């Protein structure tokens, strides 16, 4: 049963609260990219991803690979909402022995299909999963989320070229274009010019959306799953830190935790506390 637009928006809000709580508790981590991706992840997990929380290793599940694996609080939040892990597990984020390792890790956390954390690896891994799906005559899809800064890694383009060469129509990329990377805005670190044209020139089907407009997110994911002839990419224009005013569009919150006062402000802004 799929969620309505307003239900998806509420799901994403609840995830945002957990993201900020996780990073605040750990006093470390990556809130900015988690908040930019979470509307996309919420809709993907709630309405599209074929997976069984009580059987996370189900062979015929859709795969989801968070290639920007440092944005793990976002993934842990949605995994908890979908019951792959518990809310209590979220408290183990960056804690010794915890299922919620700093970067998403398939050896530690149920529902994680690839141990990411080193940028530029997820699309190639997803390509292997997609070839496996085809060899197994499975209908399963492979979703890979990349960050816009991440596509500066050359290996992404090795994979982009190879995915089209092998006509992997079951391979779907969601690009979280939040325009900020570790040190600064992407345009100051490495200008990428026309990103949609780059993917088109590699033979991919491309659609652009506002990654925080839930109706557009749903349209975009519909585009991905309805297209099985060609590798396809959904380019989502997002705001880093979306939902917490002082984090929005702020490179300082790529990888930094809020202090006590900032945490209170975030909880109010996310509708979790009174002003």
């Amino acid at each position, binding site marked *: 049963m799929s969620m309505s637009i307003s239900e998806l928006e509420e799901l994403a809000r609840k995830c945002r609260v957990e993201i900020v709580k996780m990073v605040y508790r750990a006093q470390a981590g990556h809130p900015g990219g988690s908040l930019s991706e979470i509307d996309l992840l919420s809709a993907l997990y709630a309405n599209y991803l074929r997976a069984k929380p009580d059987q996370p290793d189900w062979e015929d599940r859709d795969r989801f690979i968070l290639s920007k694996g440092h944005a793990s609080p976002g993934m842990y939040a949605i995994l908890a909402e979908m019951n792959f892990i518990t809310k209590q597990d979220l408290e183990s984020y960056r804690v010794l022995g915890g299922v919620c390792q700093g970067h998403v890790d398939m050896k530690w956390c149920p529902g994680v299909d690839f141990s990411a954390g*080193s940028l530029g*690896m997820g699309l190639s891994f997803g390509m292997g999963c997609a070839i496996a799906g085809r060899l*197994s005559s499975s209908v399963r899809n492979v979703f890979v989320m990349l960050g816009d800064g991440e596509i500066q890694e050359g290996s992404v383009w090795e994979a982009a070229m190879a995915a089209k060469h092998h006509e992997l129509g079951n391979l779907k990329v969601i690009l979280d274009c939040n325009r900020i990377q570790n040190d600064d805005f992407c345009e100051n670190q490495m200008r990428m010019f026309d990103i949609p044209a780059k993917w088109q020139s590699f033979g991919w089907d491309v659609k652009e959306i506002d990654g925080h407009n839930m109706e557009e997110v749903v349209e975009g994911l519909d585009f991905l799953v309805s297209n099985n002839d060609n590798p396809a990419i959904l380019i989502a224009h997002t705001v880093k830190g979306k939902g917490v005013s002082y984090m929005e569009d702020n490179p300082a919150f790529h990888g930094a935790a809020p202090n006590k006062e900032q945490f209170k402000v975030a909880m109010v802004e996310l509708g979790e506390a009174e002003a």
Partner: protein
Amino acid sequence: MSRMAATRDGYGQALLDMAENEKVVVLEADLGKSTKSLHFRKAHPERTVSCGIGEQNMLLTAAGLAASGYIPFASTFAIFTERAFEQMRNGIARTDLAVHLCGSHGGTHTGTDGSSAQSIEDLGIYRTLPNVVVLHPCDDVSTRVLTNQLVDLGKPSYTRTARNKTPVFYDGRESEIRIGKGVILLEGDDVAIIACGVMVSEAISAAEQLAEQGIRASVIDMHTIKPLDTDLVGKMASKCGAIVTAEDHNIIGGLGGSVAEFLSSTIPIPLERVGVKDRFGESGQADEMLDLMEISAPFIVAAAERAINRKQ
């Protein structure tokens, strides 16, 4: 004259041997003609993935296949596997996915392409990765047997093969070959020469030259660099009281380093390491390279004499 063959041909044959297992898939990065995966590709194109000249993508595509229940065998030149070292580290070793990587044309023995193609560090770097099994067989028969055993290993692996032909030792001796178990090819109790890959035949030649001086040398084929067969190394150390290692690899970090690590904390007997002395090669024929690098049989003989002289 014994039969001559290249270990890479044993790899190609092994892929054909295992082809009836539908889970076996082969990945190439435009060097299948050289690594010898081309035979599998011709027979089973539907289970062969061309990755173009893109080693980083190849290794992680293999990882995705392994995570999905397939048994991937990926190959390129040893030197080019190193471009994807971090993919091997983070995507394969760390995740403990049973991807089997073969680096052909390893060592200075690969010859006239020169130093850009002569990997002298592959065994050392892969040996430092947790979970990874490292193999360097000496002939086509043992390469074929060991590669077939990888199908059931359930761990990631790296296998170095060589471009050029060397003497074959294992015709009819296939049953003696197991991953993780060194093989005693010659028995003597004055010194034990532990060698791998193309250096095994040099070690045999050295043992024959030592025999002419009345020195009885054992020769061990240590085809598994990791996990090291420490039982056998310890046994040979106790029996001979002196050990020489021989490898076509940097003297830092490879077989000699591994044996030294073990002996220094257990049976600290005289050890002499024959290997490339922390330098790069150049263009030359295989036999010329072994002489230039000071690792051919006469250098093993000299090392054995030094080790014996150092005995208490």
